[in-house]
């Protein structure tokens, strides 16, 4: 479980995250939603330590991540898998080397063991016979799946996904969403997904937090979101023709 307590972040005079507290449950797909520029990416970067908090705490199973030194953080980070918006696969490595990278870096396994693990996680994300391909030879959806495979290669306890559906067609987005949810349940990990894709919210939103202008504005689940009277959330969720029809 991950818990954020009274997080604040400033960029110069701009107070981009204001006193945000939220609990992300283990074994659930926890979604953070909000408009572009609302502060959700900053929130995620604070949770994983890519940005330093100005005040507040980030607790990983009760341990305050913000007060840890590099070595202690390293131990936690080896239990974190992250799927980036642009996949962030290493351009100079092929699919196999990308997925094997954390195994090479942090384990003493034999090459056979590592290859077995790589093939297992690639199969888990429904990719086979792609080992020698370079990232530039993959489609957007395949890149995301390879990135998921790399993220789960080390059996992480925490999985972070930043806009996993960006740049994907609705059908491929659905496949990625289902994959994230299945992995979360299968390995009982704490998954946090940053998204503004309403299909994702309504299909995998076990625990949804809505960030509005840097504040945690609303929290609930995918069923409650359809019945809420929160104006800002309704404006955001049902702002398109399609979703407004759904609401009606």
């Amino acid at each position, binding site marked *: 479980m991950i818990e954020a307590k009274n997080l604040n972040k400033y960029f110069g005079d701009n107070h981009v995250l204001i006193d945000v507290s939220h609990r992300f449950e283990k074994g659930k797909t926890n979604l953070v939603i909000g408009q572009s520029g609302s502060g959700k990416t900053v929130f995620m970067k604070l949770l994983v330590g890519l940005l330093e908090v100005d005040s507040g705490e980030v607790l990983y199973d009760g341990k305050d991540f913000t007060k840890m030194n590099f070595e202690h953080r390293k131990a936690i980070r080896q239990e974190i898998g992250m799927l980036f918006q642009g996949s962030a696969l290493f*351009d100079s490595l092929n699919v196999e080397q990308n997925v094997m990278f954390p195994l090479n*870096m942090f384990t003493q396994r034999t090459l056979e063991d590592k290859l077995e693990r790589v093939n297992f996680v690639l199969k888990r994300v429904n990719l086979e016979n792609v080992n020698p391909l370079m990232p530039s030879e993959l489609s957007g959806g395949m890149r995301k799946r390879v990135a998921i495979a790399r993220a789960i290669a080390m059996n992480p306890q925490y999985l972070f996904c930043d806009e996993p559906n960006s740049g994907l067609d609705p059908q491929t987005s659905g496949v990625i969403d289902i994959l994230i949810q299945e992995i979360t349940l299968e390995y009982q990990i704490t998954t946090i997904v940053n998204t503004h894709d309403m299909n994702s919210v309504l299909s995998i939103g076990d625990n949804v937090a809505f960030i509005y202008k840097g504040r945690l504005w609303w929290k609930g689940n995918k069923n409650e979101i359809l019945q809420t009277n929160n104006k800002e959330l309704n404006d955001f969720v049902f702002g398109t023709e399609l979703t407004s029809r759904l609401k009606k």
Partner: protein
Amino acid sequence: MHLFYGIGKYVMLMKRVFARPQKRVIFRHQLFTEIQNLGIDSLGIVVFISLFMGAVVAIQTAYNIDSPLIPLSMVGFTARQSVILEFSPTVISLILAGKVGSSIASQIGTMRVTEQIDALEIMGVNSANHLIFPKVVASILINPVLIVVSMWMGILGGWLAGVFTGLVSTHDYVTGIRLDFQAYTIFYAIAKTIVFAFIISTVSGFFGYETEGGALEVGQASTKAVVYSSILIILFNLVLTQLLLT
């Protein structure tokens, strides 16, 4: 103030760069890859420039010897001294600042803007050490080799130009290049090259690592890397010459 802020950030980054590699096997693999990318792949341009540089020095020297009291062996002597003391270590390092420096900055800068560096950090990898340290070590190891090759090629170019234009005979040229040779000049050139290699790899690594934004900023970082590396090479050239030759 901006300058001091930049120097501070550079020093802070170097503290992270100069750490023990997390996995020796991976470091060794990266080191050989970088020696290939930064050194061996630059061999062609180094040989080409050095040959022509030596040739021009020899021809210009020969044309400027008006007095019959000055022996033609001075052409070989001047070509050797110019190539060893200045042209190979400094000019080739400036060329490498352009070729290798921009490559380092754009490679690391692209990794920064495409979140590949963030991915390394999330995994618990010291990204500064992982990305920059092998390039620094590779540059320090391979650049002196390139400079020695450049010296040979420069002197060879001078001989070829002298002989084929008929300005100086092989005998005079060889006499000149053997005249009053001091091995210390090679040490001086290698010492300068090592300092310049450090400047090129760390300054370019710094600008690449600190890139923020997108493709435009990667290009700007690459340009800055070349400009600042070149300026520092020129400044340190003066300082080292003063320290080592006086």
